[in-house]
């Protein structure tokens, strides 16, 4: 019987195991924040991670040719959706009162705040690290500040007063932040960009990373926005915008391409006119624009069928171009016919957007073309517009006219350079040039003006009924409501809360 002990002991060996260690979690396929920022390579990876947030709004798709991205061009009223639309899209397409529950509004909100948190975290950790020389550290900090400014600029323009948060969240119990005034948000954006401007960034940097041109261009866009609505800081800021835009133009690093087709050439990516692009690659980081903008009902003009119809220009907008405008010439910005894929038959259709046609995608079925984010034509017209505002509506400033004419001349090669330009002229040019690049809506709300495409004149935005809308704009249309989910989760953002400065 005493041998029992020999059997009992080994059987119950576990009784003597240490319990606390046994329950410890030691993940091996994911890393935790506490173990991070130990090497330069880890810092680089965190920086790359912050950049990865840039495409959030460009890749979110819910179904066939459906993405929250299109919402801000639907909202202009100059675009329509030939494919069937859901309730969430119809609200933008027809200018219905936006429902805070509309999920696209939440997407625009979240696609800024999640990347901002990464920026905040990298900035906080870069400030602490001793792994890098100051110069290298500053440049990375400059890039992060540029990105943070980009995201806040998106938020403040679309939503107005929003929470301003520049430090990372570390505690589950400290997750509610009150709204800040638009003034203080713009101040932070300007501060971030000014920091980036002096952080040691150079004009030409690694493609896709923040370079000096991108920083200054964004700052110019911020200034002209601050000058207009809603802050209405006026002439001083138009002047700042004009100066900053000229710094970009005068650098001669970002000349326009000679032809519109050059804009979408694979070999021209990240060069010249493309001051800043969101990086894509065909296998793993697809660009959805080529396929989403295919003609619909399907004409099969590219290899993938059954995906097009996300957006097409309003017919009256298409017709608003002046005679001889090269942008409206077949297969520059638009097309109305194409050879069907793999066939010799030609399909014809109403005008569709050709801006983002990807010749590689047409045959491979995968588009890796970069997404246009900031291009020189925008900055040139911005310089001209800012100066026209400064000069009271008409300017004879040579630099402004030159900038305007660079863009105008490509569209209308036979037109002579004017001796003076009006605000209306420049603003109309911006519509024609920058249409369907997710820029027009921002122009409309900062200027509170719209392009009456039927009459061919600039008019007040409030009271104007855009071609695809069911009614005229009212003031309440100019800001997206705070998303319902955010109202429900953040007590500070529930309706009727006060703003802190």
């Amino acid at each position: 019987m005493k041998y029992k002990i020999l059997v009992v002991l080994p059987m119950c060996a576990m009784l003597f195991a240490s319990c606390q260690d046994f329950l410890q979690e030691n993940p091996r396929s994911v890393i935790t924040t506490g173990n991070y920022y130990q090497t330069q390579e880890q810092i680089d990876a965190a920086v790359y991670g912050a950049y990865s947030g840039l495409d959030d709004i460009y890749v979110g798709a819910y179904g066939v040719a459906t993405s929250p991205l299109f919402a801000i061009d639907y909202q202009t009223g100059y675009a329509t959706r030939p494919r069937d639309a859901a309730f969430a899209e119809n609200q933008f397409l027809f200018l219905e009162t936006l429902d805070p529950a509309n999920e696209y509004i939440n997407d625009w909100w979240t696609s800024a705040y999640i990347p901002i948190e990464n920026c905040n975290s990298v900035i906080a950790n870069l400030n602490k690290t001793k792994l890098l020389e100051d110069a290298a550290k500053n440049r990375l900090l400059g890039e992060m500040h540029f990105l943070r400014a980009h995201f806040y600029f998106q938020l403040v323009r679309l939503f107005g007063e929003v929470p301003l948060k520049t430090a990372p969240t570390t505690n589950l119990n400290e997750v509610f932040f009150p709204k800040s005034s638009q003034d203080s948000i713009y101040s932070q954006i300007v501060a971030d960009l000014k920091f980036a401007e002096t952080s040691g960034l150079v004009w030409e940097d690694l493609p896709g990373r923040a370079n000096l041109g991108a920083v200054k261009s964004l700052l110019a866009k911020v200034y002209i926005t601050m000058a207009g609505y809603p802050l209405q800081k006026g002439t001083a800021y138009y002047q700042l915008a004009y100066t900053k835009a000229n710094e970009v133009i005068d650098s001669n690093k970002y000349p326009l391409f000679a032809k519109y087709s050059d804009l979408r050439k694979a070999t021209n990516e990240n060069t010249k006119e493309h001051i800043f692009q969101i990086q894509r690659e065909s296998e793993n980081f697809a660009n959805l624009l080529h396929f989403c903008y295919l003609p619909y009902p399907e004409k099969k003009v590219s290899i993938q069928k059954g995906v097009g119809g996300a957006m097409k220009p309003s017919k009256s907008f298409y017709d608003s171009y002046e005679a001889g405008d090269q942008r409206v010439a077949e297969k520059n910005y638009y097309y109305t016919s194409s050879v069907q894929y793999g066939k010799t038959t030609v399909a014809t259709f109403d005008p569709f957007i050709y801006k983002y046609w990807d010749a590689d995608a047409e045959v491979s079925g995968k588009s890796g073309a970069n997404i246009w984010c900031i291009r020189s034509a925008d900055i040139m017209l911005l310089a001209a517009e800012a100066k026209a505002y400064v000069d009271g509506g008409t300017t004879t400033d040579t630099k402004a006219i030159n900038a305007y004419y660079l863009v105008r001349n490509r569209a209308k090669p036979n037109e002579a350079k004017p001796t003076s330009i009006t605000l209306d002229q420049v603003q109309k040019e911006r519509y024609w040039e920058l249409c369907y690049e997710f820029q027009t809506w921002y122009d409309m709300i900062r200027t509170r003006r719209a392009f009456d495409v039927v009459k061919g004149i600039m008019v007040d935005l409030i009271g104007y009924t855009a071609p695809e809308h069911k009614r005229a704009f009212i003031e309440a249309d100019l800001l997206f409501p705070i998303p319902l989910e955010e109202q429900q989760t953040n007590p500070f953002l529930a309706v009727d809360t006060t703003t802190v400065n």
Partner: protein
Amino acid sequence: MAQSDKLVTVNVQNESLLSVFTTIETQTGYKFAYNLESVNVYQKVTVQIKNKDLNAALALLFKGKGINFTIKEKNILLAKTTDAKDQKTQPEISGTVYDNEGEPLIAATVTVVGSNVGTVTDVNGKYSITADPSATLRFSFVGTQTQLLKVGNKTQIDVRLMSSINIDEVVVIGYGTSSRKGLSTAVGSIKSDALLARPTSINVLQGLAGQIAGVNVMSNSGKPGADAAIKIRGTSSLNSSNDPLYVVDGMVGADPLTIDPNIVESIDVLKDAASCAIYGARGSNGVIIMTTKKGKIGNSEVQYQTTTSIASLANKLDLANSTELLEVFKRAYEYVPGRIAPHLDPTMTSLDFPRKAELFNADGTPIYNTDWQDECTRTAISTHHSLSFTGGTKDFSALANISYKDDQGIMLNSNRKQLNAFINLDWNVKKWLNIQTSINAGSNEAHGVDGGGITLTETRIMLEALPFLPVKYADGTYSRKGDYPDTEEAENPVKMLKEKMNTTGRQYALGNFIGTIKFSDNLKLVTSWGAQTNAQYYFYWSGNDIYDSSETQKGVATREHWNYANWSNEDYLSFSKKMGENSLDLVGGASWYYSVNTSTTAGSEGYFDNFYKYYNLSVGTVTETPQSSFTESSMNSYFARGNYNYGERYYFGASFRVDGSSKVGKNNKYGYFPSFSAAWRPSNEEFFSGLSGVINNLKFRGSYGAVGNSEIGDYQTLDKMASQQTVFNKTIVTGVILESLKNDNLKWERSTQTDIGLDLGLFNSRIDVTFDLYNKVTTDLLYSKKLPSSSGYTEAMDNIGSLRNQGLEFSIRTLNIKTSNFSWRTSYNISMNRSKVLNINGDTQYTWAGIIQEGSPLNSFYGYVRLGTWGTDEAEAAAVYGKIPGDLKFEDRNNNKQKDSGDRTIIGNGMPKFETNMTNYLMYKGFTFSFELECMYGNSVMNYTRSIMENRVTYSNCYKTSLDAWTPDNQNTMITALKLPLDGYENDADTRSVEDGSFLRVRNISLSYSFKKEWLKQIKINELSLGVNAENMFLFTKYSGYDPEVTTFDASFNQGVDMYQYPKPKTISFNLGLKF
């Protein structure tokens, strides 16, 4: 009294009476007969007997021990000494005790209730005892129901003790067993024969369906080997697991899908908190305990069973045929005046409509009328074989089983095959040491079709394909939906079924070792070690010419492998002691559990040839990003339980478990889970004796306890960073982004449950009733709380909120008729569960077609209220909403003159108001006929299949009901005017999509015949039976889809969402069973 000529010699010091009996039996050849309740055979004795005759020896042995003995033939009958004084004054009562077959019962105990007087029956079942006319006699015998009878003025009392059908069965309760009559908790049980009653059950979950009240098993797909969804007393967690805990032969955390029903002896389902609390940590969804078959002592036996079944589509959807669909097309095109459907449009050139001449006659009538449901399905023939070997001696027994199943699905090319081997050994190594060890191993592989869902799967296109297209054209090419202009392009379903490959499989092994060391008759130590490994895979191949899947990629092949393995160790001491009317059982121990999961995925695209499929990924020119993962988790627990009963009348139980889990926050690793239960059996009280002929068992039960749940996935409390690739100038680099906020305080989810129950046996348990009421509240929900995304995070796991499930369960088993040749048994159960979300931080969560919000039940469907269609006289009112007559009309619930999210409301619930099952067995001589009915009432089904097809006519085929669409002459309809999708359509979930899913199903009808044993003996066969089964033969429902017991998505929150689910078969099977 016969005199024995054998002499007895005994010389023992402080050994049990039992061991002395063994000595005397060996020396004399006489056998002792006694009742354990009246004779304490474990008492220690010291006695010296030398060469005495039996009578003298026994007299010496029992001197002063209060035991009377009687020698009858070769039996020594023992009883308590009766009080000599009483004998003189009280009359003698005598009689015979019989069993339920009418055979005399030897050694049944007869006692006078409330005294020490008692005796046992002799070899003829006869007894005599003295008792007052006012006294009550208690008759009892192991395995029968105790009877109480008043003496009155009778002097002869004969009694028939019925063997207990129910109340004395052994129930496995975790770390031990109990008799059913001793339970104070809610436990449901089924045995092997019931589990195997439906031959097409591939896994134990399917076998469990409908068998136990409160255990909801939904067979949501007709795919061979499809997992059934199981809920025990409702869904109790939102973000943690809702699966019950599975225990196989004491091994906690076994995978039920690897257990072949053929090897299971019994299943016990622990439903209330008090029974689950011994598995506290993971008991909040109930515990399913499986006990595998063991070898039988005695002659070795071989058993063979085989089933061949023939399955076909149970019912077809009522879809439009060619002529009807073309009428729909014609009207949809003519919605815009002047627009002509392509097949009627003479201007359509062969460039626009190349196949027109092949499909239509000159007058526009169709040439083909294809029934795609027929084309995509088949009559499927499946076979199962099971071969068992069993045998054993007193100290060693073994059982081995090997089974093979080849199940063919009713969709073309879908099938599942499984090979399983099992061995179970039981060995008394020493008197004090028993070991039991089992190994279960096997593999299975299923070639399926893509399940349902919104993508253009085989099951979807089978319904949506256009009937006027042929499967193949005369030139041998497959048709495609897009061959008719402006429909939605999709691949031919027959081609997909034949050429795409979706393969899932697994190889598994489960080993278990249990050692039991008996320190004494009261105390033993049990130690068990278990391990299992599961290698699972999913392989996918879609060839270089399959439209929409892989045509542009020129072929896609993927191989995913997962491996999960775990080991566990449980050690516990168990102590049990009876002292007179007191009986006590104690268990205490500890357990350790460790699990590891890994996965690897690789894939490639770009195949020059379809030969390679997924067998050679290196052939593809484009490599998909490979993926892998690794997670591990561990648990450590301590537990104790005590059960006490007094006189089998008053029962008390309590348990306590401490659980530690790696998955919860580091500040709250351990959770504490107590439970209490009590029961009272008035039927064993003296005052009840007059009723015992009617009510033979009555027990009131009550229990209360807390159980936990921490199945939230690994590393949920850590501040993780996720890797995120990004690209600069076409060069891919790896970055990291923030993924989650840490929560060191995250703790166990906790369910507390109160259960009140009643067990009732009538007429010697010819009627057995069990009734339970429960209230189960889950608090500290492991909840993925929504955060404002301005914080940088959209959600974090936290202990927030509570859910409630309340319900009642009733089951009854009756023996309606019992004669020597014929018997009829019925078992019936009904259960109801009502869930309610009490608190989820004010959040709203949307599921497929549903909503989770405070104050509402789970599985609520959410959407618009469709009022009908706008009439021609309502044009003005319609215009307010931007609508015209013929458009759909919805209730404007928030009255803001537009259709928006505020108009949505709860429009149904996917779980039944009640569900009920009834099985009848009729036996006549060797024939057994049974039929099983399944009924659910009050459940809704969100029929996305119909609503998508109805709302997007001309993209696809539609139900015949689409012909009832709005026209100026047919305005009273729920269906919008026929128009093209580009004319606008509304496809939101609404009341039209929600259908009543109540149903009555004849789940199983079976007829079998067992040949007479006398005949079989001549050919040396022990048993031979033949049978035929018909499953799912009749379904009565208003539901317009294939089957209202359905979901395409996760059943925890999306029960009843039908989106092109794999249809269900009806099956006829033929069975043969043989034992020799």
